[in-house]
């Protein structure tokens, strides 16, 4: 089998995010970038399938974005991925999810993957659109936000468990298919030191516009039908008011404040 895992470099959840001077991007200065946490589940799942099958299955990590994407690819290799492809080109900049998915689909298609795994969403922009759009461009079935994945013995189908309102849904997909991974699917491994040493020796393949077979009009800002016009900071958290006194006094005062100040009663 060939398994493609999609990984993205995103700001660490603990980083303090500042909006850049242009108002439509994040200032990367001082931000620590890591592999999107949901993509870790995707890498882990790909590796577990490979380890279970014990055949010639390979796991290829693919990342699109600026140079720092190389770091998350190196992490995926250190975890145990066989190959890595970095999709990067100045022409790809400013693309929306649809334009980016077009590029990724074009890069993935010739790999003839049986299974494409991604995170359920990237925690930077939370759009959760790129993966489903890739499945659409490739015209393959998809199951999103999956917490359990099983391959059939003949490796022709996969069964995915999805949490839906009030219960779980089991979806059977014919392969090739795309699956996005949710917390609970597995427990991602740590890159071991021998794994890191092996990763160092592997080459990360670069793929740009020319290799994608697309034109400059189809990609990046030019190929996008939506664009970010402005980022806003969250409003500052207003001061917290502590109400003193015993429970009865506190309750009385709280009701008064809710009525007179917050005007919600």
């Amino acid at each position: 089998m060939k398994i493609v895992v999609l990984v993205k470099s995103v700001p660490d959840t603990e980083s303090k995010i500042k909006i850049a001077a242009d108002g439509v991007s994040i200032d990367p200065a001082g931000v620590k970038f890591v592999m999107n946490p949901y993509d870790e589940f995707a890498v882990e799942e790909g590796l577990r399938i490979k380890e279970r099958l014990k055949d010639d299955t390979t796991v290829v990590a693919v990342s699109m974005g600026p140079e720092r994407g190389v770091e998350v690819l190196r992490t995926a290799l250190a975890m145990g991925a066989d190959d890595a492809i970095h999709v990067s080109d100045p022409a790809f900049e400013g693309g929306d999810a649809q334009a980016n998915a077009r590029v990724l689909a074009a890069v993935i298609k010739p790999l003839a993957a049986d299974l494409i795994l991604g995170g359920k969403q990237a925690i930077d922009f939370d759009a959760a659109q790129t993966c489903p759009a890739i499945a659409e461009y490739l015209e393959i079935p998809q199951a999103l936000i999956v917490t359990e994945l099983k391959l059939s013995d003949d490796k022709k189908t996969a069964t995915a468990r999805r949490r839906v309102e009030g219960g779980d849904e089991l979806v059977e997909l014919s392969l090739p298919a795309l699956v996005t991974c949710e917390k609970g699917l597995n427990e991602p491994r740590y890159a071991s030191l021998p794994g890191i040493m092996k990763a160092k020796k592997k080459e990360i393949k670069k793929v740009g516009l020319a290799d994608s077979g697309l034109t400059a009009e189809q990609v990046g800002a030019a190929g996008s039908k939506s664009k970010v016009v402005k980022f806003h900071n969250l409003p500052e958290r207003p001061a917290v008011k502590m109400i003193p006194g015993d429970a009865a006094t506190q309750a009385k005062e709280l009701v008064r404040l809710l009525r007179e100040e917050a005007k919600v009663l």
Partner: protein
Amino acid sequence: MQFPLTEEHRLIQETARNFADNEIAPVADRHNREGSFPLELVKRLGELGFMGMLVPEQYGGTGLGNLPLVVALEEVNRVDASTGVTMSVQNSLVCAPIVHFANETLKQKYLPKLASGAFLGAYALSEPGSGSDAAGLVSSAVKDGDSYVLNGTKNFITTGAEADIVVAMVRTDPNHKTRGITAFILEKGWKGFSVGKKEEKLGLRSSSTVQLVFEDLRVPAANIVGELGLGFKIAMHTLDGGRIGIAAQAVGIAQACLDASVKYAEEREAFNQPIGRFQAVQFKLANMATKLEAARLLVYNAARLKDEGQPHGKEAAMAKLFASEMSNEAAREAVQIHGGAGYLEDFPVERYFRDARITEIYEGTSEIQRIVIARHLLKGLR
């Protein structure tokens, strides 16, 4: 991380940091309070390769070297100095002398198990009557056919209770103070080997520190590390490396002190403002961060010199001296910034304060480090 660390170092740091934050940190307080050795975590560190960083690949390690080792040690010590010293001892005091001085048979026999963490090791130099004056040791080994019969007591031995093997320095010739010492590898189950008193300590409470007792302990001559009479040289060479690891431990503890202090200074309010707005607090933080950075660079540099095969005894002593004193100052200031809360078990700086203290004592006290450095300076007085 400004020093020229490579992509590989960055990945090692990331793995060590994630493992430390996700696996060690959540249980560190409990283990320290109970005084229980975190065996499972130590084994997992071994499985990830963190116990064999100085062991060449052919013996089951990664042979990554001292710079990556100190980078990883800092991360582990940042969350728990007890687990940190276990890792440092295994790499620098147990694996390293076997790699450098033992014959092929001993290397094949012990290194793969030590590198994977399947075996834990201890380093036994100190005795009830000798610490700083290490060559004053009196435990003895007397030749009897193909083996030696050992008698004596080793004091303050880290991981001694859990260790499967011990690298022990024992006197084989009473007529030569330094050249009369030999290094042996001992195994736990051997008759005449026993674990004595477990020490109750100010800090490092989930690392074990025990007495080891040898009573007519028969050791095959084949288990001599290097040659007869080379024990003191091996012990000193080994400590030159170990000190860099302890310096990294001091840096890790200080980083934890700084992180906790910055957080507290932003959150705690007094006189209607965050205490971080007071210049007195700001200056403490600025001093901590600056000295911490200086110490880290000394540690990196000593590790680099060692990896390059250059003389590093002076630099290792400087790194340990400066980093351990810096760490204690940082811990003291961190408690101060936390006010009364800093004195309570509920806040992590209370443990950092207790843990930092040992870095000025073991693997050579600060006084001994100054002596080592001065000896390097005053070569003309020999």
